[in-house]
Every structure is written in structure tokens, then in C-alpha cells.
């Protein structure tokens, strides 16, 4: 596998778009969190009561939760990286050439899945470092309590990247894959979730819509503010969410591999 990844590295190394996206992702994570941090600081200074309401989201241990929550809005960027990496192969027909030159179809698709794994791990690691950075800036004492949110972020990142992989394998064309990926993750699933949750004319915050593919992993890291005030309703159980995430990930994996191994390339 290491040899195969080395070849994948040769493909990525010279691909400018990939590095632009990487830079954009890293800068945006710091930037977005800093933006939220600034607003929060402003509110706390202006109004002492705000602290009671908002709490201390950038202090340990809450910082793990806060940073992973806001960073997760940027997970479409690693998704884009996966889409370009796969649809490039289709448009250059190099997926064919790799097979012709002696990779098995199994090897090709599994290298891409390894890429998903590595990009997710690196994203998670960067978010881990960002959390430490903001935790330190906020001036609280370091704590590993609630560090499980880093783990949830990893699952969420896998989920976005695997969905991106699946769409690329199914659609093959970059524009359409990117369009559908955005449309689904930002719009379709939210509408579908709301429709499902409001079924039967009862307005609910939680409901079956929480268990849609991306919502499942999004809900692992709920909105971090105002938690001191009220729990509007019972959030879905983390264990159920994790179990369901595993199921979705397996489905993405299974369908992608099956599809790539049986289709005409």
C-alpha cells in the first residue's frame, strides 16, 4: 500500500489546485474560528450578561467542541479535493491507463479511499492543533475533557470525503459532481431534514431528519452556544449517531468499490 500511496503522491504533488485548496482550508479554519472568537470577545466585553448566556466556548474543555463545530462548516473543501482527485482521472482517462499499466481495479479504488483516510486524518489533526491554539489564547488550563469532539470531527470529515468519493465515482464528471455535492450538502439535505422532522404537522427540532447521511455526522457536534440556557429537546444519542455513521460510511465504501470494480472504465 505504501508503494501505491507513493504513486498517488506523485499525482498530487504537481497539482496546483490541490495545494490551493489545502491552503484555503487551513487558512479558513483559523480565519473562521478567529472570526467567531472575536465576536464572542466583543459580546463579553460589551455585556457581562452575555457571558452567562454564552458561557466560555473557547476555554477548555469547551474549546474542543466549539472549534470542531465551526471548522466542520469547511469540510466541503476536503470533499472538493477528493472530487478533483477522482474526476481528474476520469477526464484525463488516467484511471484507464493506471489499470492498463498494471494496477488492479481494487488497488486503484483503495488508493483513493486511503487518500480519503489521510486527508481526513490530516484535517482532524489540524483542527486539533487549532483547538489547542484557541484554548491557549483564551487563557484557560489545558484539559483533555471533551476531546472526543476531535474524534467526532474525524468521523464527520470521513463522511464528507466518502460522499464526495461516491459522487465522483458515480458521476465521473467534475462540474456535475461538485455541483451535486454542494447542492446536496448545503441545500437538499437540509430541506429533506426539515420535511422529515415536520412530518404530521408537528414542528420538532429533532426527528428522523437528523439521521440523514450528513446530518447524522453533523449532529455528533451540535451547536455549542446557549447550552447553559435550555435544552429544547433531547438530542439524538451519540451511540446511535456513531453506529449510523459507521453504516453510512460502509455503504459509501461498498457502493464505490462495487461500482468501480464492475463498470466499464
Amino acid at each position, binding site marked *: 500500500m505504501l508503494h501505491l500511496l507513493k504513486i498517488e503522491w*506523485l499525482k498530487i504533488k504537481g497539482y496546483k489546485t490541490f495545494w490551493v485548496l489545502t491552503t484555503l482550508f487551513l487558512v479558513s479554519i483559523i480565519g473562521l474560528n478567529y472570526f467567531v472568537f472575536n465576536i464572542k470577545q466583543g459580546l463579553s466585553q460589551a455585556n457581562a450578561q452575555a457571558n452567562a448566556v454564552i458561557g466560555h466556548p473557547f476555554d477548555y474543555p469547551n474549546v474542543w467542541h466549539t472549534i470542531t463545530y465551526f471548522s466542520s462548516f469547511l469540510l466541503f473543501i476536503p470533499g472538493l479535493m477528493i472530487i478533483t482527485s477522482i474526476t481528474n482521472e476520469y477526464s484525463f482517462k488516467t484511471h484507464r491507463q493506471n489499470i492498463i*499499466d498494471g494496477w488492479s481495479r481494487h488497488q486503484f479504488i483503495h488508493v483513493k479511499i486511503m487518500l480519503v483516510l489521510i486527508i481526513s486524518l490530516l484535517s482532524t489533526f489540524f483542527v486539533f492543533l487549532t483547538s489547542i491554539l484557541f484554548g491557549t489564547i483564551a487563557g484557560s488550563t489545558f484539559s483533555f475533557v471533551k476531546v472526543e469532539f476531535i474524534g467526532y470531527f474525524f468521523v464527520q470529515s470521513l463522511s464528507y470525503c466518502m460522499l464526495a468519493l461516491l459522487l465522483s465515482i458515480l458521476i465521473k464528471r467534475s462540474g456535475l459532481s461538485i455541483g451535486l455535492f454542494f447542492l446536496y450538502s448545503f441545500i437538499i439535505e437540509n430541506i429533506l431534514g426539515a420535511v422529515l422532522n415536520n412530518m404530521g404537522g408537528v414542528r420538532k427540532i429533532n426527528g428522523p431528519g437528523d439521521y440523514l447521511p450528513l446530518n447524522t455526522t453533523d449532529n455528533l457536534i451540535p451547536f455549542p452556544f446557549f447550552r447553559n440556557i435550555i435544552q429544547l429537546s433531547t438530542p439524538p444519542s451519540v451511540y446511535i449517531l456513531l453506529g449510523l455513521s459507521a453504516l453510512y460510511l460502509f455503504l459509501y465504501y461498498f457502493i464505490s468499490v462495487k461500482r468501480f470494480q464492475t463498470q466499464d472504465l
Partner: protein
Amino acid sequence: MSILTVENLYKNYGSVQALKNVSFSVPSGSVFGILGPNGSGKTTLLGIVMDVLKATKGSFKLLDSTPTADQRKKIGTLLETPNFYHYLSAQRNLEIAAAIKGQDENDILRVLEIVNLTQRKDSKFNTYSLGMKQRLAIASCLLGDPHVMVFDEPTNGLDPVGIAEIRELIKKLYHQGKTIIMASHLLDEVEKVCTHVAILKKGELIASGDVNEILANEDIVETGSDDNEKLLLILKLLNNYSNIKEAGNLLQLFFPVGTANLEEINRHCFNNGVVLNHLHLKKKSLEDKFFELTNN
């Protein structure tokens, strides 16, 4: 030993039958031409052999055994179009190909030299002309000096000099004992280099085997005189020809390969009172034969 054996291969694209029950075998050390007009299934056939397409039915063997990905590493293949990463240089692209094939990177300069791309090895692939792309694809096939090579329309996009060079290269590889499988619609190409041939028409194999058996050529002698009617009567007195035809203001005599004797024909006509103003020996071209095979 057989390099490739295709057994009862079928391939459907929806309702279109691209291959219908195709079977043949490629002997070791041959230059095997797969001939057929556009859309006859040549690339589909090679695509299945390279595992980029899935056969609807039927099977094939490489080197008399069940095909594997590792076997493909030892076959240099150019299928349909040169497929490279547009944003990488020729050198980098060949590094990827060499790594997949498990070949030494030191071989890259050698193959680039063969196809005259050494000067441009650091240019990005998307700056290449069509002919250069094609030559790079051929260079990639040559990596690791494989014993078997598959070329699908190898001279596509090349200028006349490039075409001659590739033809020479294929002949040289053949003399080194390599097996070459070549798909082409350019008959001239096949005629000049192939030892064996399979002819496809609309997905059906209409003939396969030794090129001299399949494309048993005929000698054609074109004759002309002031009085072709008289000439015809006189030519009919000859006894070793196989057919006689009028073609414009000329008469064509057909002979089995190597049996036409111009001197004898000329003397025969002169002795019978007809002076020829045209006498020309023409090899029946593969093209004629090909049309004959694919048109009925």
C-alpha cells in the same frame, strides 16, 4: 505458446452489439494486426483484454493463463488515446507509469530518446502537440522493454516522418522477437508490418490467421493497346491467368502471386499482332482485399 487467446467474446453497449462471439489466438513472436473499419470493435476488444471494459460474455487468456493485473505490468499498451496527467511533465508522467509497472526510473530517458522527446521532457503534457502526445504514449509502452506490446492506432496524429519512424520501430521490435498486437484501420500500416491478422466487421470476426493466408494477394497485370477488343481475344489465349477484367481503357489480368510474367505477355501479344502501349504489374493491395472481405 499463445500470448493472447480470446474465447467467444461478446460485448454489448445497451442494444448495440460491439463484439459478437469473437475468438482468435495471438502466437508468440508475431506482429498481430487487428483490422477493421471505424466502429468495428477493435478498441472494445483490446479494452476488455486490458480490464478497462467488462465483457458481456466469454473469456480470454494471457500467456495461456487466467489474466491478472501483474501480467499487464509486463505488457506495454497504448489504448485509444494517450492518457496522461495534463498538468505534469512528460518526465513526471513516465515516473508514474514506471512506478505502476514496477520499472526502474532510469529507463525513462532511454524511451524518451527513442521517440525523440528528450528535448521536451520537462514540458507539461498539455503543451504537447497531438503527435508528441502519441509519441509519449509509445514511449510509455516501451518502459522496461516489455516482450509484448499492444498498440491501438499507433500512428494516430503523427506526421509522415513520425509514421515512418513508428513503423520502423515496430519492425525493429519484431526482429527483437517481441510480440506486437496492433489495431488499425490503416491497411497500409498492417500490410507493411504484420505477420498475422484478424479482421473485424461490425463486431464479428470475419477472418484470422497468417497474413499471407488471409490476405492471399494476387498479381494484377494492366495492359492496353489501340484495339482493346482484339487484345482481349488474344489475352484469352493465355492459359495461366485466373481472371480477366476490363478497367476503363485498360484490361486487367489476374495471376496467383508471383506467376505473372510480363515478358511472356508482351511477346505473346506482339506475336499475335497487337502492340501494347501499356503494360504494368500491380500488386493487389490489401485495401482491395480488405474491401472484398468486409463488403460482402
